[in-house]
């Protein structure tokens, strides 16, 4: 996993609440057995005017000019600004894979769905929670300032605006540590093999039916 320390990037505003993972990456693209290549199909149904299927040449498909991410001013954005309950619905990790592949390393919203929020950290994406009023403020700023960029500093846990305003955010200490260092969870857990084995032995003694061979 790529570490996340500091990011200075262009902000794209997606002004909708309850954006679900079906919208972020529609189901037909879930048939892939790979982890990469989902970016061109992120928000597929909103982004293109035709119907997308795996294997199409996305560069020749008609873009929906009304979809915000298609506007020239937001090309190359790496921070997604959006509304509450982002990422609700399906647990598909294809959603953060698609956002990452598209170029987003950071999301700012008032709230997220639990599974999506968790999946982001596994993929080097930082989902930041700010108050609804702070998010509102940023939506207004983005709207009136073309080229609006934010500086995200994970170490200091702050988002800094071009005007120098600073918004602090909370992040779980363990997740922060993993993101800052790009650490693989599995490797960390496997350092605790002895504890897992000891637990397993006690658990098996107490509830042997959980370990039946079928």
């Amino acid at each position, binding site marked *: 996993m790529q570490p996340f320390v500091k990011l200075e990037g262009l902000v794209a505003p997606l002004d*909708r*609440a*309850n954006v*679900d993972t*079906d*919208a972020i990456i*529609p*189901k*037909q693209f*879930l*048939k*892939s*057995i*790979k*982890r990469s290549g989902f970016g061109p199909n992120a928000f597929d*149904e909103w982004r293109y005017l035709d*119907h997308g299927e*795996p*294997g199409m040449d996305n560069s020749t498909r008609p873009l929906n000019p009304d979809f915000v991410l298609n506007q020239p001013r937001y090309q190359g954005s790496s921070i997604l600004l959006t*509304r*509450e*309950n982002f990422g*609700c*619905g*399906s*647990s*598909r*990790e294809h959603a*953060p894979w698609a956002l990452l592949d598209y170029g987003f390393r950071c999301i700012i919203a008032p*709230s*997220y*769905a*639990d*599974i999506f929020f*968790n*999946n982001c950290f*596994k*993929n080097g994406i930082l989902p930041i929670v700010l108050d609804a009023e702070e998010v509102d403020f940023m939506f207004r700023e983005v709207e009136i300032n073309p080229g609006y960029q934010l500086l995200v500093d994970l170490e200091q846990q702050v988002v800094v605006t071009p005007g120098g305003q600073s918004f602090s955010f909370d992040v*779980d*200490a*363990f997740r922060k540590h993993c993101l800052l260092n790009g650490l693989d*969870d*599995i490797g960390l*857990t*496997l350092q*605790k093999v002895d*504890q*897992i084995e000891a*637990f*397993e032995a006690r*658990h098996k003694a*107490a*509830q*042997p*039916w*959980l*370990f*039946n*061979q*079928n």
Partner: protein
Amino acid sequence: MAKTLYDKLFDSHVVQEENGTALLYIDRHLVHEVTSPQAFEGLKMSARKVWRINSVLAVPDHNVPTTDRSHGIADPVSRLQVETLDNNCAEFGITEFRMNDTRQGIVHVIGPEQGATLPGMTVVCGDSHTSTHGAFGALAHGIGTSEVEHVLATQCLVQKKSKAMQIRVEGQLGRGVTAKDIALAIIGKIGTAGGTGYAIEFAGSAIRSLSMEGRMTLCNMAIEAGARAGMVAVDDTTIDYVKGRPYAPKPEQWDAAVAYWRTLHSDEGAKFDAVVELKAEDIQPQVTWGTSPEMVTSVEGFVPDPAKESDPTKRGGIERALQYMGLEANTPITGIKIDKVFIGSCTNSRIEDLRAAAAVARGKKVAANVKLAMVVPGSGLVKAQAEQEGLDKIFTEAGFEWREPGCSMCLAMNADRLEPGERCASTSNRNFEGRQGPGGRTHLVSPEMAAAAAVTGHFVDVRQLN
């Protein structure tokens, strides 16, 4: 100290805890073809083994055709994903019910059906509807693919404890009102983010009266309220359901298992971080009108008028939903005509669901304006049971199609889908834009209400149908 059921389940699986982050031991890992290929690939790339092979049970369900399977899967991309699961399970020695095994079905139907989901377990699956298994007094939740790989490799999950919410439903449900209606009424009340950050325990006399099938429907939809886990305390209904199933404890283990399972309830005086109460008598058959499960009303209700919503974000959401759904504000729900009917999904494809739908469809005909009404049993064993009871005949004589088991048109990864603009009465769990096919319009209802809509061609109060 008095503990909640969630406390008991969580605390009894903590391997180690540091700064509020726990390493939680996982008893059962259910696997399907969509969210596992990248996890197996990760294991292979790191030369890691599966920690405990007999904790894993795999089944293909999302991509499988519900029509004749004798020639395999026509779509090469779907076929590759199912074959990848077959190959991974063979390579790692994992038990898999393959597509043509009679035990094959939707992962959240077959786990309980096999007794592979037991009270007191931690259950995970790379699928958000894993909350279903909480119906057994288990701690069950959906995980992403990175976590699938993590659980395969370590038998553990890194977890922070959620807050605990109790949703109490007291009283007796009226005729024609089901667990699905309770679930939708709850989501209508607390919203799709109302349960975010919580594990929900469903309690109260109306819940106690539900069958296991009903409890599974309810816990299945906990995720639609934002909660990763939903659960119901163990009682005789739970224990009677588990007894004799293939993966249930062996006869010599049974008494000890039951003695433990009897402790799986919230203690008297246990504290919840939030409590929500509903009266069973107040719940009517529910129908969603929008593109989120919280956009729901009773069958006696009307499509809402965005002009009456003061919050601009919500008003925009309603306007967008009505436009997508092709609905006018203030239309009575019973005035909405449908094109297709889908009875199935991990929410409502169990034998009790099919019996309830068949009871409504018996002796009637699918309305002329309904292009397709399909019944997709949750598993091969549900299908066989239904056929033994003659339910398939009732459906086919009424003009429904009787299909092979799988996820089917709940999310349309196989060939079953809505065409743009088509309107569907569906017993599934999500009415998101494009969920059942691009441009498709989904209305979530109970099996009874879906069958009633099929035979009348529009939404109708099943209680008024003779």
